[in-house]
């Protein structure tokens, strides 16, 4: 009797699984069909192209896209290379791994944002896609292989450094996770056609950040060894901890984009909106955020180091002494000599764009202190810290022996 009932249960489970697979297959073919239709219309129909350029919401509504984020005008290229096969568009989903799902993807499942775009090697993204599917979210892979380096500056296609049409499930891709088919497709089309502001709106990225910051999408990545354009980063200084996107290296962050400045009010609004959802859905994670993100961050060249729990105090001539715990230092590069120098000490001096660590002087560095919010005691303590004007900042000039 029990063998019979377990057999029935297995049959029921198989039936449900088949049903889900059928639904997924139907959804995928529906998505591919809609994408092909609209891309064909863009390439072959001049009237449609004109409509896109004058009344984009009306044009996209013809293909079933009704979204308040669609701007009135959207430019479209005259030709585009793209592959539509199932593996290229959806990749290969893997079983959700034990690794923590990145916060930007989790925020979609909490309803805090409609779309997440997470870059990384496709094999790393598979488990995230699997998790998204288990949450009844829609996932797709970006139409291009490679990272859009100058996210905000791209106006058309073909000029992106290192980008090429994706073919197959692999490569360096962006994983789109959305709460609905339409939003996933809009994000995919935005990447294909370079609709940066629409993509920004779907990702909760303020328009000022889309426009101003080349590193806007930098925070949305799973891998390390990122090409950084240091001059595009905000100047050194003291800032509200909610802006600390560098915490992503520790798995803790609130912002899913790199803000145009560390006092961008819209970015802070996005961070607080995300925090509010995390408090409701993942309170233990939300509780750890302040302690982790209240941190000193130093950057030299392409290496970023986080010094959680560091203390900062004034030390004459506008300089500051930073005491930190070397065992807690986290960096985006394990082979960086900068990170190694920092790990071998427990104290550094910071002045302007100069860092002094042990017997080394480092010029052209950035140092951000992420601390309490506006009006906090921390802010008063560090009130002498002033931002370094951009024009004064230098590229990282390397190590120099310290002259005592």
């Amino acid at each position, binding site marked *: 009797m029990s063998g019979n009932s377990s057999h029935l249960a297995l049959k029921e489970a198989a039936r449900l699984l088949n049903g889900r697979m059928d639904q997924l297959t139907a959804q995928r073919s529906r998505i591919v069909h809609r994408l092909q239709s609209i891309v064909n219309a863009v390439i072959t129909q001049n009237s449609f192209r004109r409509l896109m350029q004058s009344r984009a919401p009306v044009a996209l509504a013809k293909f079933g896209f009704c979204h308040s984020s669609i701007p009135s005008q959207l430019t479209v290229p005259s030709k585009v290379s793209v592959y539509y096969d199932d593996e290229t568009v959806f990749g290969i989903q893997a079983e959700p791994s034990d690794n923590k799902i990145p916060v930007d993807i989790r925020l979609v499942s909490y*309803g805090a944002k409609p779309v997440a775009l997470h870059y990384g090697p496709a094999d790393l993204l598979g488990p995230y896609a699997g998790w998204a599917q288990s949450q009844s979210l829609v996932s797709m892979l970006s139409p291009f292989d490679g990272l859009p380096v100058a996210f905000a500056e791209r106006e058309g296609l073909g000029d992106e450094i290192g980008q090429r049409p994706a073919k197959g499930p692999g490569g360096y891709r962006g994983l789109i996770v959305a709460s609905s088919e339409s939003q996933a497709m809009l994000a995919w089309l935005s990447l294909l056609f370079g609709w940066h502001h629409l993509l920004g709106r779907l990702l909760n990225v303020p328009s000022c950040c889309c426009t101003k910051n080349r590193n806007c999408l930098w925070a949305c990545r799973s891998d390390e060894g990122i090409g950084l354009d240091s001059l595009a980063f905000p100047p050194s200084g003291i800032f509200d901890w909610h802006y600390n996107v560098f915490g992503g290296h520790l798995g803790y962050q609130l912002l899913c984009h790199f803000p145009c400045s560390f006092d961008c009010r819209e970015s802070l*609004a996005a961070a607080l909106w995300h925090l509010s959802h995390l408090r409701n859905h993942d309170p233990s994670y939300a509780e750890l955020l302040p302690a982790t993100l209240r941190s000193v961050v130093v950057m030299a060249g392409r290496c970023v180091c986080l010094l959680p729990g560091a203390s900062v105090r004034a030390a004459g001539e506008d300089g500051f002494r930073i005491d930190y715990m070397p065992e807690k230092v986290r960096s985006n590069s394990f082979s960086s000599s900068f990170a190694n120098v920092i790990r071998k000490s427990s104290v550094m001096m910071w002045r302007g764009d100069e860092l002094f660590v042990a017997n080394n002087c480092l010029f052209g560095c950035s140092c951000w202190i992420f601390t309490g*919010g506006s009006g906090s005691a921390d802010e008063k303590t560090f009130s002498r810290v002033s931002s370094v004007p951009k024009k004064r900042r230098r590229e990282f000039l390397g190590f120099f022996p310290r002259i005592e």
Partner: protein
Amino acid sequence: MLVESLRRVLMGQSWDPKSAGDVGLKESAMQRPEILCETFTDLKAKGPSCARGIRRVALGNYFTVVELDDCSIGAALSYYQGSSEALQTASARITDLAGSDRWLDGLLFGDSTSSLLQGITSVPENLVLMSLLAAVVSALSASLIMEGGDETFFAAPSIPFDPFDGVNSAVILGLGGYLETLMMKEEIKHVHVADLKHSVQDMKRSISRFGKCASNKFVTFSDGSDTVGRLQTAELVCITGSALCNGTMEAVLDAAQHCRRVIVQGQSASIHPRAFFRRGVDLIATTVKPIELIKCAESDPSGRQLKQFLEGGLPWIYLLPR
């Protein structure tokens, strides 16, 4: 007598629910205005940045407006009616009273004479004090909101996210507000609109202008009597800030505890939001009131001049918990 009954509500004592009937309020929904009282006490204790007291009060049929001596302005929807003369007389009397009782504690919570409000004959005058308290709290909050917030909240002039994302069903309490936004949103399939003042016919007329967008939605209406039940299943609730001025805000927020998202919006919601956030509100959309408001309110108690500001003329500001 009606003033006394409201005073009992403000003091947390029982009161005669019949006095709320004229504005269609459901007896069970009216509670002591904890949010206003709590915020009033907190702000007085904390001390607003510059203000030492109330400079002017302008009662009006549309909004009640208060100016502090640091030029901060507060406003709240009026749930009372009166002739221009009566309203101006009462406003002058209350302004005089503020000379000796700088925050009007005596009038709002004590035993000051109700004769101050004589001449406001249109009923229900019992809600005069509720609107007045909301306007005073709004004025006390104005400077902090303008400064961008404090350790408990952040005030953003714009937001990069859509607060209606991720929900399929919404309840709107108070016709207007975010109704249009929700009707235009494809993902939201069920919208319920409840309003105490407007008839179901009025609400249906409002919806009809959305044409095709409304056709793929299941839209329902009520007079608010079924709000508690509706909120049990709604994912999102948008509450008009004017619920602060008729004593229903607390009951609505209690009922909305299971909603995935709670948004308070409107001109009357411009108070320090800590008490809202403690009760589960996720976002407040409101405005900061300009100095011109008090002049318009004083010169025209009917409120017609105020409409240029309060019906789309002021930029929105969004309050988020820190």
